[in-house]
C-alpha cells in the first residue's frame, strides 16, 4: 500500500514494489478466493433489480413454500418460495444488499470512531490514553448483543437503527488494535525525524503513523464487517433487526425456522449464503494482512 520508492534499490533488485505486491496478491489463494466471492456478492447486490427474477415483495399465498429446483421445484422459482409465496432467489439477492450495506456502513462508522480514539491514545499517551483506555474498558464490559437488543427494543427495529447501533458498538477492537499499533511505531526514527523537522501533528499522524499501521486496520475492518453482518442476522433472527417485509438473510432464517423439520432448505439456503459471505470477508482480510504486513515486504 505504501510506496517506498527508492530508485537505487529498484535498480539493484529488479522487480518494483508494485510488481512484488502483485506477485504476493496473486500468489495468495485465500485472498483471491475471498476477494472474488465478495466481489461477486457485491456485484449481485448492486445489480439486484436487474438480476432478481421477481419482485422480492410480491406475495402469492397460493404458491407458498414451493421447493427449490434441485428438490423438485420448477424454474419459475429456482430457489423456491417462502412462507408467503415470495420468490426465494429474489429475496436472497435483495438480502445481499442489506447484509453488505450493514457490514460496510457499520464497519466504517466504528472504524472512524475506533481509529481516532486508538491513534490518539497511542500517540499522545498520558491523560488521553487513560481516558480512552477507560472508555474501551467500559465498552468491553458490555456484551454487544445484549446492548444491541436493549437499544433496538427501546427504539424499535429498522435498518437505520441497526446500522447506527452496530456502528456505535463495534469500535472497541479498532481502538485496542490501533492504540497498540500506534504505540509500536510512535517511537520509531522516522516519527522522531518528522517531529524534528517540525511537521505538524496531523501530518505526522496521517503520513507517518497511519501508513504503517493501516494493514492492521484492514484486518480489523474485515473482521468487524463480518461481525456486523452476523449480528444483524442474529438481531433479525430474533425479530429485533431489520423489519419485514425487508428481505434480510437473518430474517429469512428466522421465518423458515418453524418449518425447519420439514423444509430444511428454507433455513439452509440463507444460512449457506451468510456463511459464504462471512467466510469470504474473513479470507480476504487475512489475505490482505499477509500481503501488506511490513515484515512480508522483504
Amino acid at each position: 500500500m505504501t510506496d517506498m520508492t527508492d530508485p537505487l534499490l529498484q535498480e539493484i533488485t529488479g522487480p518494483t514494489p508494485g510488481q512484488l505486491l502483485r506477485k504476493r496478491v496473486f500468489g495468495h489463494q485465500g485472498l483471491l478466493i475471498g476477494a472474488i466471492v465478495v466481489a461477486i456478492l457485491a456485484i449481485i447486490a448492486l445489480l439486484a433489480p436487474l438480476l432478481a427474477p421477481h419482485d422480492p415483495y410480491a406475495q402469492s399465498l397460493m404458491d407458498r413454500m414451493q421447493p427449490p429446483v434441485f428438490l423438485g421445484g420448477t424454474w419459475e422459482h429456482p430457489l423456491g418460495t417462502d412462507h408467503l409465496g415470495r420468490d426465494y432467489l429474489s429475496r436472497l439477492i435483495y438480502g445481499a444488499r442489506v447484509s453488505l450495506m450493514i457490514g460496510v456502513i457499520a464497519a466504517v462508522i466504528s472504524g472512524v470512531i475506533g481509529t481516532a480514539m486508538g491513534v490518539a491514545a497511542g500517540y499522545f499517551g498520558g491523560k488521553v490514553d487513560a481516558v480512552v483506555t477507560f472508555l474501551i474498558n467500559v465498552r468491553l464490559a458490555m456484551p454487544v448483543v445484549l446492548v444491541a437488543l436493549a437499544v433496538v427494543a427501546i427504539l424499535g427495529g429498522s435498518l437505520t437503527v441497526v446500522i447506527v447501533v452496530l456502528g456505535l458498538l463495534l469500535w472497541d477492537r479498532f481502538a485496542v488494535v490501533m492504540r497498540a499499533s500506534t504505540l509500536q511505531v510512535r517511537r520509531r526514527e522516522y516519527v522522531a525525524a518528522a517531529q524534528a523537522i517540525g511537521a505538524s501533528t496531523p501530518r505526522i499522524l496521517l503520513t507517518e503513523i497511519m501508513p504503517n499501521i493501516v494493514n492492521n486496520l484492514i484486518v480489523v475492518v474485515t473482521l468487524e464487517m463480518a461481525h456486523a453482518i452476523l449480528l444483524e442476522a442474529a438481531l433479525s433472527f430474533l425479530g429485533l433487526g431489520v423489519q419485514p417485509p425487508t428481505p434480510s438473510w437473518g430474517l429469512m432464517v428466522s421465518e423458515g425456522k418453524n418449518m425447519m423439520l420439514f423444509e430444511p432448505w428454507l433455513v439452509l439456503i440463507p444460512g449457506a449464503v451468510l456463511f459464504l459471505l462471512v467466510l469470504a470477508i474473513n479470507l480476504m482480510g487475512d489475505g490482505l494482512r499477509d500481503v501488506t504486513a511490513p515484515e512480508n515486504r522483504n
Partner: protein
Amino acid sequence: MKKLSLTTAITAVAFATAGLPALADKAEDKLNVAFTKELENVDSYFNSSREGVVLQRAVWDGLIYRDPVTNEYKGNLATSWEWIDDTTLEFKLREGVTFHNGEAFNADDVVFTVNFVADEANGVKTQRNVNWMKSAEKIDDYTVRIHLKDKFPAAIEFLSGPVSMYPNEYYAEAGASGMGLKPVGTGPYKVVSVVPGQHFVLEKNENYHDSPKGQPTIKTIDIRTVPDVNTQIAELFSGTLDLIWQVPADQSEKLKSMDQFTVANESTMRVGYITMDAAGRSSMDPNPFQDLRVRRAINHAIDRQAIVDSLLKGSSKVINTPCFPSQFGCVQDVTSYEYDPEKAKALLAEAGYPDGFTTEFYAYRNRDYAEALASYLNAVGIKTDFKMLQYSALRELNMKGEVPLAFLTWGSYSINDASAMVSQFFKHGSLDDTRDDEVLEYLNIADSATDPDVRIENYGKALKRITDQAFWAPLFSYNTNYVFKTSVNYSPTPDEVLRFTTMTWN
C-alpha cells in the same frame, strides 16, 4: 445463532431416534403433554393464559358447567339455580363433595371465593371475569345467593367458565402464591407436583363427584413447557411427548401425512382483526383513520379468504363481525367488504391519499399473518412501518392510544356471549380505538337487558354501526391443531380447552 444450532442438534437426534419404538407410556398410564407458554401462576385467578384455563378446568370446578358440544348448562358444584330477581342468583349446592385435601365443599367455600375474587383490592388478573359480582351470602350450608352489582345476563356463562370454587380454609392460609405452588380444588385431576412455569404433574382424582365433566380415566398427566414447536415435534417423534396442541397449520399438514399421529382440527373463538385509530388518539397528523373511506379501503385491501385458505387452513373462517359467530348476540347480518384492491385504491384517492400514506403497523402474534396483511396494505399504497411487540407491551401502548393500526386477536376467554368481545372493546374503555357514542348506547342497553330479544336487537344495531363505519377490519377465526399419537383417543372441543377427562387410551 446459538439457539439455532441447538435446535438443529435436537432435530438431528430426534430424527435419529424416530425409528425406535416409542416409550410405553400407555403401559404406565401416563400422558405427556406440552405447553408452549410458561404459565405464570397455576392459580387461575392470577393468570390470563390459555394454559391457565386448561389447568383450571382440570383442577377446579365451577358451580355450573356448559357442555362444550350442546352448549347446554348443567349443574356441577351446584345442582340447581334460579334468578330471585334481576341481580340475585340462588344456588343449591351439591352435597358430599370434597376438595383434594379432604376439606368438605359447602356454602362457606362459595361465599369465601366470591367475596374474595369480587373484591378488586385482591387483584384478580382479569377483572372482567369477576367484577360483575358484588358479594355472596350463605342461606344455609348448601344454599348460597350471589348478588350482582348490576343486571348481567351473561352471569351463567361466566359461572360456568372462569369462576371456579376455592377451598376457604386452605386458601385463607395459603393465599394465591400457595395456591399456585400447591393447588387444591374439587376437579377431576389433582396436582401432585408444580415446578412454576415448567412442569406440572396431575393425577386422577379417584373420589371425583358425579360431575357433567365425566370421570377421568388416564392416571397421570405430565405437562411440560416446551416453547419451541420444532422441539415439540421432535419430542413427539422420539416418544417423550404424546400430545401437542396449537400446532401451526403447515406442520400439522406434514404430520398428518404420517400414520403414527392423529391430527384433529377444531375452530376456536379467537378472532383476528385489524384495529384502526378512528378516534384519532395517536400522534399521526393528519390521521387518515378518522376518514371512513380510508377505513373502508383497508377492509377492501385484504384478501381474507386467501389468508384463511393458505395460512390458517383447517376450520378457520372469514369473519365479518367484531365477535365470533357462535356467540350469543353476534348477529351476522352486517356490512361486509369483499377483496377489491382497485376499490381500495380508489377510496384512498378519494380520501386525498392517491399515493397512499405511511403508518406504523403493530402486531404481537402470528408474524406470518401480520406480514401477509402488511403486504396486502402495501399493495394498495399504504406503507407500513412494521413493529412486532410482546402482547403486554402492545396492550399498554394501545391503552395509551398510541397505536394507529394493529393486527390483534381476541379469544373472549371462550365465553359464548358477544359481550365478551364487542363490549370489551367498544365501550369507551382504554382499549377502545373508536369511541363511538352510538355504539356505546346500543351496547349499554344490550349488556344490561335481561330479555334475550332486546339483547340481540341491540347487539345487532351496534354490530351494524361498527361494520358500516368500518371501525375494525374483522379478519378470520382461528383454529387449533391437536396432534397426538394414535394410541390416544381424544375429540377436541371448539372452546380451545384441553379436557383431560375425555382423553382415553385406544
